[in-house]
């Protein structure tokens, strides 16, 4: 039902209030609710608001790998392209154990410098994602130290016009200070485990104004000693207009909670109002 009403809203609300950015430049929605790729938060703020505007976005995403499934829906607000506020609810299904893990993520991102298209240096933003598990039973069972945690990150992004033989090239690098196990779904920290700096990166080529093809990487800690893997994906993002984005990806999440070879697909839809 949530999906149906979401899609209906998109269909009937086809005019963007704030269209002050160039098409596709806000990026898409990542699983923790921030503007980014699918798994990496980027320096851009969600939505098409320029410095005199505000905007609201909403998204739903599903990641489906061999033994697990993640559903996320969230909202994002952009205030004058300076501050991004986001809220996301995640449902992580573990069919084998007949268990569902729920996590809420509240995020704030502040643009410190620049514009991904026009400034000489990359756009730079700092952000925080506050996460809390509804029921920390699984996390505690696996040895996590806490059921809530805060990730802090610094992100740099740049779009180079015509840089790849006339095609626009985008890149982002993010440094995240975190102790989240599997992004928090399996709790935070563990005995003898501390927060650490983790590297995340994305790159994409725009095949047209509307379509981007890219890759992402997200370094992960291994606090629980379960062989937590770094995440990778290949994505294709479609921006038919400034009100809508649809993204699909192929995921390689490696080992999750000791179960190997978690590959699968991802799809995400974002509407901007």
């Amino acid at each position, binding site marked *: 039902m949530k999906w149906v009403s979401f899609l209906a809203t998109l269909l009937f609300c086809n005019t963007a209030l*704030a*269209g*002050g*950015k*160039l*098409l596709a430049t806000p990026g898409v929605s990542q699983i923790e609710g921030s503007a980014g790729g699918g798994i990496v938060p980027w320096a851009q703020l969600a939505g098409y608001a*320029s*410095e*005199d*505007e505000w905007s609201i976005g909403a998204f739903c995403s599903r990641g489906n790998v061999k033994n697990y499934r993640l559903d996320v829906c969230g909202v994002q607000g952009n205030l004058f*392209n300076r501050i991004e506020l986001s809220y996301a609810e995640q449902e992580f299904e573990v069919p084998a154990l007949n268990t569902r893990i729920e996590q809420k993520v509240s995020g704030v991102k502040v643009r410190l410098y620049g514009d991904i*298209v*026009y400034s000489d240096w990359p756009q730079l933003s700092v952000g925080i994602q506050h996460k809390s598990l509804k029921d920390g039973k699984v996390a505690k069972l696996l040895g996590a130290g806490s059921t809530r945690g805060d990730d802090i990150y610094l992100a740099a992004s740049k779009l*180079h*016009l*015509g*840089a*790849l*033989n*006339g*095609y*626009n090239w985008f890149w982002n690098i993010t440094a995240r200070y975190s102790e989240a196990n599997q992004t928090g779904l399996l709790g935070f920290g563990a005995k003898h485990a501390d927060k650490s700096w983790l590297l995340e990166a994305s790159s994409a*080529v725009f095949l*047209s*104004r509307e379509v981007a*093809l890219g*890759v992402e990487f997200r370094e992960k800690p291994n606090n629980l000693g379960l062989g937590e893997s770094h995440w*990778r994906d*290949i994505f294709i993002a479609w921006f038919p207009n400034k009100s809508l984005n649809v993204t699909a990806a*192929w995921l*390689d999440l490696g080992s999750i909670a000791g179960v190997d070879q978690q*590959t699968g697909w991802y799809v995400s839809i974002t509407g901007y109002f």
Partner: protein
Amino acid sequence: MSLSNSYKRLLLAITMMVALSACQSTPTTLYQQVGEQAGLERLVDAFIKQIGQDEVVFPYFKQTNVSHFRAGFITHMCDVLDGPCTYEGDNMVQIHTGMKINEHDFNHTVDLLIAAMNEVRLSHSLQNKILARLAPLRAQIIKI
């Protein structure tokens, strides 16, 4: 399909795309690729038509002499795209001072230019190369 294979295929596809388009014998300057003077005139006319139909950008041109703008913009583009012209008209700061163009309206004008480039069928990569030449001028145009 394992991800490392997908990565390799993607890299191969991108490499081929870049390599293949490098094989085409392209004219040396962007000015030539646009179609020289005649091509520039078509582009600027399409752009002026876009502006004329646009309720956001048109008000900025209320005081503008269209034929003066047309001639100046063609020469300026010819200069910026390495054509055989030297633009000697008013500079970007002189022209835009007092207009107080904000980020939204600037990007909207870029959207109109892209629409004009589509209308005269410039290729996607040529459009991007032109935008890359014009983008650095933004600082001399907005919020003054």
